């Protein structure tokens, strides 16, 4: 079922006035879609998720799930499941009781509960851990239990709040793929919040980039990468980030900015090219290297094959294709 936010607005009152958390946000996740909300910390992405769950009230605007306005409903009546950043497993209960907590709270019959537990523990491969307590589990197992608890109720939507942030890099990549496969299999509408743009790009059917309570752009990962709507998105998505510099740096006669991805810059061996600059620093990352070059007083990053790496503190030429340039106005918005 779809999840829709319309004009969602939320401010937190503090001693020194108020802090804007959500600034009239419109967002729509279609039935079965996985929408990732990504942004820096403090951008309002977790608040957005909590408002959908009903853990926070909106000041104005509405939340609809499956076409039903749930803005005024309690969390329990919204039929969503949430996976929390720190898992929020009940430490005193066994995995079995953790997973079945919501079913027991909703007074399902013990037979149904047993069947449900069997089904999800099989799905997530946690059969062996059912009688253990969360404190006896590894990080990855805890993550699976948290997912099982969300899945077992068969909710209309999953809300995931940085569910992988507690895991180490290797496990995170593994679980990311698992969540993706699981979501595809269950085809349950999912809103997934993260600050990690790699997670956003690899998981999302669409990605919403948020900053200071506003949605900067909602698009498919590829569109976000290829056609950023503004300089913030351009810099936020991609690692290393897109070079966004005053247009005159690249000899473009306009008062705005130009952007170009590091992989679209080539350094020339002979030091000549349409642009020249001084190499300040080289970071070798396996088969590639990130070259930092100062061009017309701006730092520009180029991602080049290791064979092409110039020596630090030398002059180098830089080549690029104008098709790969992104033009942004003085206000930071993309010009198309």
């Amino acid at each position, binding site marked *: 079922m779809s999840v829709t936010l319309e004009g969602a607005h939320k401010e937190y009152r503090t001693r020194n006035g108020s802090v804007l958390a959500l600034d009239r946000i419109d967002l729509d996740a279609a039935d079965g879609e996985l929408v990732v909300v990504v942004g820096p910390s403090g951008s309002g992405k977790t608040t957005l998720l909590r408002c959908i769950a*009903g853990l926070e009230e909106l000041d104005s605007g509405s939340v609809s799930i499956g076409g039903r306005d749930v803005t005024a409903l309690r969390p*329990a009546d919204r039929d969503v*499941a949430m996976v929390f950043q720190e898992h929020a497993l*009940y430490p005193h209960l066994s995995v079995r009781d953790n997973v079945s*907590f*919501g079913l027991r*709270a909703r007074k399902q019959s013990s037979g149904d509960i047993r069947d449900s537990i069997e089904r999800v523990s099989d799905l997530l491969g946690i059969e062996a851990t059912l009688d253990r307590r969360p404190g006896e589990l590894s990080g990855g197992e805890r993550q699976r239990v948290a997912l099982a608890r969300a899945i077992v109720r068969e909710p209309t939507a999953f809300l995931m709040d940085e569910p992988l942030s507690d895991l180490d890099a290797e496990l995170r990549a593994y679980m990311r793929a698992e969540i993706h496969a699981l979501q595809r299999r269950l085809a349950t509408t999912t809103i997934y919040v993260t600050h990690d743009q790699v997670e956003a790009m690899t998981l999302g059917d669409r990605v919403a980039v948020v900053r200071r309570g506003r949605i900067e752009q909602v698009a498919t990962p590829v569109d976000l990468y290829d056609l950023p709507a503004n300089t913030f998105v351009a810099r936020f998505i991609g690692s290393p980030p897109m070079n966004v510099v005053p247009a005159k740096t690249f000899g473009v006669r306009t008062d705005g900015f130009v952007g170009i991805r590091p992989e679209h810059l080539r350094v020339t061996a002979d030091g000549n090219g349409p642009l020249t600059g001084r190499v300040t620093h080289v970071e070798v990352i396996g088969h590639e290297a990130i070259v930092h070059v100062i061009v017309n007083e701006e730092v520009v990053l180029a991602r080049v094959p290791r064979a092409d790496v110039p020596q630090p503190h030398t002059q180098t030429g830089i080549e690029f294709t104008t098709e790969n340039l992104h033009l942004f106005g003085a206000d930071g918005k993309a010009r198309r």
Partner: protein
Amino acid sequence: MTSSPARLALPYVIGLVVLVFVPAAAALVLAFTDFTGIGAPELAGLDNFRRLLGDEAFWRSAGNSAIYVAIAVPLRLVVAVAIALVLHRRATGIGIARGVAYAPSVVPDAAWALLWLWLLNPLYGPLAIALGVDFLTVPWAARVAIPLMAGFQIGEAFVIALAARSAIPGSLYEAAAIDGARPWFQLRHITLPMMVPVIAILALRDVIVALQVNFVPALIVTEGGPRYATTYLPLYIYRTAFRYFRFGYASSLSVALFVITVVVVYAQYRLARRWRLL
């Protein structure tokens, strides 16, 4: 030169030895003597303990103490935990409310007892008149009144329960709310189970306190009556020693109280372990 931690502990250790170990050892020795405070103690072997087993007043006092523990401990735990659950939220005036909950524990025991002596007075005591019960002359009512007084002095247990409640992460309640758990279900399946280790410790501790610390109200409010209904072991020991000057026998009663306390607390501890509360 002793190491620094040992030196820092020294004042405490000196206090412990002089104020606890030495008197305890003296009491243990006196328990096997006949000593009236005049002249030297005379060794009496196990006479005191033999007499104790046949002492009706001792068994009555022990029974009174058991009744006191059975009422006071659950009452104090329920009150302390309930107030902690109500007052754990942040709200305006919560600090004042917590202060009020703690206040009775700050009142000196003697002043607290005098206040209750007035409240329970059969002629003009507001509580006695309001309830129409004569607490000071009816044995069962007196047996209820003394633990009731203690039911308000729950400051420390309240603070500990408050800390235990505050230590439960809020995200557990949010997860439960989304899962459809109502407040009562949350209380039964999250709050109380997660507070159980602390509640169990509080119960152990309160049994010790309840067996040993009810001397002041029993002396001031009811004077051990009516008809010995509130003559608890501490009051009986006090009277034996300082009214009848049988210090040797009073010491053997103290040893008996110590043994009873150890046995009850150990039994409680075993139960708590068996039920996996601790």
